[in-house]
């Protein structure tokens, strides 16, 4: 089970919308960090994911371990939030 979900997004990123839509359809809550509104957090997204891309979804599990999913990748996202 996911304790906490954070998604790094930008205004124009269509794949970010898909991740949000998929999580909402599953009734899951998430916190969104929009990098257009918070460019100062870009370095954080890069450090977490190792990638210069969004969406980056950070799933914090019950035991506080974290799983990072880069891009719109349901094959990885579904087990990460299960």
């Amino acid at each position, binding site marked *: 089970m996911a304790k906490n979900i954070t998604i790094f997004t930008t205004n124009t990123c*269509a794949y970010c919308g898909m991740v949000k839509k998929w999580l909402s359809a599953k009734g899951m809550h998430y916190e969104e960090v929009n990098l257009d509104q918070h460019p100062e957090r870009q370095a954080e997204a890069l450090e977490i994911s190792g990638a210069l891309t969004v969406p980056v979804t950070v799933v914090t599990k019950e035991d506080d371990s974290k799983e990072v999913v880069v891009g719109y990748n349901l094959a990885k996202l579904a087990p990460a939030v299960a």
Partner: protein
Amino acid sequence: MAEEQKHQVVMIGAGPASLAAAVYTTREDIETLLFEKGVIGGLAAITDWVDNYPGFPKGLAGLDLAESLRQQAERFGAKIELGEVMSIKDEGTYKRLATTSGDILAEAVLIATGSDYKKLGIPGEQEYYGRGVHYCATCDGAFYRDKHLVVVGGGNSAVQESLFLTKFASKIDLLVRSELRASEVLIHELEKHKDKITVHTNVTTDEIVGKDSKVEKVVGTDTKTGKKREFPTDGVFVFIGLDPNTGFLADSGVELDELRLVKTDVNLQTSMPGVFAAGDVRSGATMQIASAVGEGATAALMIRKYLEDAHQTHEMPAVPATVNAE
């Protein structure tokens, strides 16, 4: 064993072509399921700004157009499943589709899978993918605020995306293998952004070089002089054309042309009866949102005719083989 789900129409892809088709089929009460493996709205959704879609004199954001198409299709009852279709098989009345959610059966199928970005296939491209090499400006452009970029390509997409990237980048080198092939309007726009975008024609892109997981430069060749050229950069965006999403049709019997686009007859029906194709994936398509939407509408009417003929019922008003005005 549980019986497979049976559907009247399954549409593969939920880009403009399928979403438009779904508006027509569902409005006629034809049960319709769409499968989408990527973004609802397809390539239109990841296009920053669309200036040439009729009915919007000021243009509109691709993402907004995609969202409106989705809402309209869903309003009439279209269902969109997030998943991929992996193969299609003709079993007579029904077509069997293998999907990420299991096998399903469909009386009629619309293939509207569009295309994906072509890769350069040069050293460094795979290694720095997502960390300096990108194919989607609206997704990854924001990481290059005040940075230096190289854009590769000479067609409409490359120019359009370079213009979008000027919102972020301080300087862009546009590398064009031969001459620019973009529309007059876009070339005019390019002129207006001369302060940021420098066009280098007759330059090939040979290698992407970096250090410590960071892109540092692009190495190319001036095809007129044969001299090597180097372009220092923080990132590379590649827009060199598209590859049709038809891999899943291998061995299906659905005929493709030499570019691997789906062949259709005048009714947009493929070589497999009951399977239609529309939009960018269709051989002869003009690769525009307006034409994808138009083909989607036509395909929907042809599907209705096909289902009527198959059922031989007279419950629905007869439709001529040509499009009826409504």
